[in-house]
């Protein structure tokens, strides 16, 4: 048991120490972007389970994030909230509640629509995402089109005379979720059970013939994905302190898809890298906007999506994970070195 939780704890520790060191040199703007990276990592990882590992194309991720975000915000603003450590605990509970409700929504959406394939599934999930948004628009007690403002941020924690600032608490909280998400997905996808996901992706008929209950597997993937999407939504609500139905438009779903595609469908580590790139890229392109005077960021986004599909349709990592890529890269490097050394010795011998 101890060895099973050692890796996640270690990852959590390393990430937090790194960010803590980074936090000394950065301002609030950079810190907020770091938090958004974590939210996007959660979003991309959870979507990758459906789009990448199970091969079902979902375009309604934003809808499930909206469910999670609105649930968590409803609890925080309307039911009960407290500062300090208790607040963090409550936020955790509410996030789980948001995730569970999103998972329920995922179940209800997935059960009928996952019988469809390919393009149709994409359109139906898009449709459900839009319907969730329209329903939220019509819910007056959730603010309707005006949304909900003044969502409390993650509280800072006082330990004796020492205060941990809100950013570190928020990052610790968010990264805990990211680590939980990453390791549960990793262990799920690379287990014997996870082979059924890959089976459905590679050949549904063959998987069915091998006794994999394909519809059940798809719905399970969808529900788990929706759960983490809901959690990501609740985190986003706390970090932006304002949500409205417009925050969860079709574009957010597309953004999630871009991350999954860029990182490589079926590569969890790829999703993490892509989420970081996609979050930082618009900010990095800000100077360009100042030079040209027009907002070219979305144009570049879209162009990048098309170009990735044409030039490198597998994304950055394909369906391989980082350790594997690292090893194969090292092997090719060693091979090159060896051949170079051999050539050198050969030429040295021939010249003598």
């Amino acid at each position: 048991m101890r060895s099973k939780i050692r890796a996640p704890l270690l990852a959590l520790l390393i990430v937090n120490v790194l960010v803590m060191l980074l936090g000394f040199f950065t301002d609030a703007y950079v810190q907020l972007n770091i938090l958004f990276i974590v939210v996007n990592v959660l979003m991309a990882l959870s979507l990758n389970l459906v789009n990448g590992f199970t091969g079902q194309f979902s375009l309604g991720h934003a809808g499930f994030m909206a469910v999670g975000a609105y649930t968590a915000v409803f609890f925080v603003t309307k039911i009960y909230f407290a500062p300090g450590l208790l607040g963090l605990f409550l936020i955790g509970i509410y996030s789980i509640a948001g995730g569970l409700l999103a998972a329920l929504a995922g179940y209800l959406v997935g059960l009928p629509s996952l019988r469809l394939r390919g393009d149709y599934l994409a359109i139906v999930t898009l449709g459900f995402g839009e319907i969730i948004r329209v329903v939220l628009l019509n819910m007056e007690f959730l603010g309707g089109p005006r949304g909900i403002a003044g969502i409390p941020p993650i509280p800072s924690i006082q330990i004796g005379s020492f205060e941990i600032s809100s950013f570190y608490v928020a990052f610790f909280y968010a990264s805990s979720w990211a680590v939980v998400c990453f390791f549960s997905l990793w262990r799920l996808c690379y287990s014997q059970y996870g082979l059924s996901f890959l089976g459905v992706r590679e050949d549904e008929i063959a998987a069915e013939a091998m006794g994999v209950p394909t519809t059940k597997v798809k719905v399970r993937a969808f529900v788990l994905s929706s759960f983490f999407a809901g959690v990501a939504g609740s985190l986003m609500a706390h970090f932006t302190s304002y949500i409205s139905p417009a925050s969860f438009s079709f574009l957010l779903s597309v953004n999630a898809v871009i991350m999954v595609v860029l990182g490589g469908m079926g590569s969890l580590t790829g999703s993490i890298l892509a989420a970081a790139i996609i979050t930082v890229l618009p900010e990095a392109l800000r100077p360009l906007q100042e030079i040209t005077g027009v907002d070219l960021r979305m144009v570049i986004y879209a162009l990048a999506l098309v170009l990735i599909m044409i030039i490198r349709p597998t994304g950055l990592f394909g369906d391989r994970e980082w350790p594997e890529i690292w090893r194969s890269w090292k092997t090719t490097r060693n091979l090159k070195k060896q051949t170079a050394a051999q050539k050198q010795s050969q030429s040295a011998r021939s010249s003598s």
Partner: protein
Amino acid sequence: MQDLIQHLINGLGLGAIYALIALGYTMVYGVLQMINFAHSDVYMVGAFAAYYAARWFNLESMPGVVSFAILLLAAITGCALLGLLIERFAYRPLRNAPKLNILITAIGVSLLLEYSGQVIFGADPKVFPEVLNNTPLFEMAGVSFKLFDFLVIGVGLVAMAVLHFLIYHTKQGRAMRAVSVNPRVASILGVNVDRTIVFTFVLGSALAGVGSVLVGVKYPKIEPLMGMMIGLKAFVAAVLGGIGNIMGAVLGGLIMGLSEEMVVAYLSSTYRDAVAFGILILILIVRPSGLLGRNQTEKL
């Protein structure tokens, strides 16, 4: 009663517009089995092509049928060219790629057109030039029948008839049907597959151009994101009628237009976008092949 008839006419007019755009979706799907997400943005570009043509020739000062024809021509040319370019540079390199990649590319092209449109045309809405007057043709039982409704419905039906003739009674149409069934065998038998696909794209895009001008004169507010919703609804219409089926696209479009108008009139206008997706989800769950499914008619 009076209201109901008025709503029926409005709904049919709206539906005819959906039908025109749905025809483009259905043709491309029929030949390539792909959803051309960018179709709705081709339609948007058509509206802007007409807008700039009108400004260029200063057409607004001389409204009339000739000006309307020039606008149509401009929109059709613009759309056809764009359709050609998209096919050549985005879709052709991926002809044999997995379906998912093609779908993502289509979404990418759609976004690219939308945001390029925002940069080039400006994000603020523009007023489409008024080249035709929406004259009431006749009045019956207190309901006025206006020119535009008839124009839109007429053009929709004519487009359907022409397409039907083209696909079932010409050589080019036979080539399209052959590619639709099996591109490889078609190419063995001497059909130029690439040219046929390009032809399909150009034809579908040209129809989007016609639709854009009709929408422009009817609802004279154009903006770079105008294609998004109407495109999705037109796609739903195509699926509703049975995708790949010409008659089905028109039927689906009319049903969509009517149901949307009825929901806005008798329920709530905030739900107008949810209707389309509600219909879509229902139809896909109950009868995925659409109303005029493949069993009755051949694909495309």
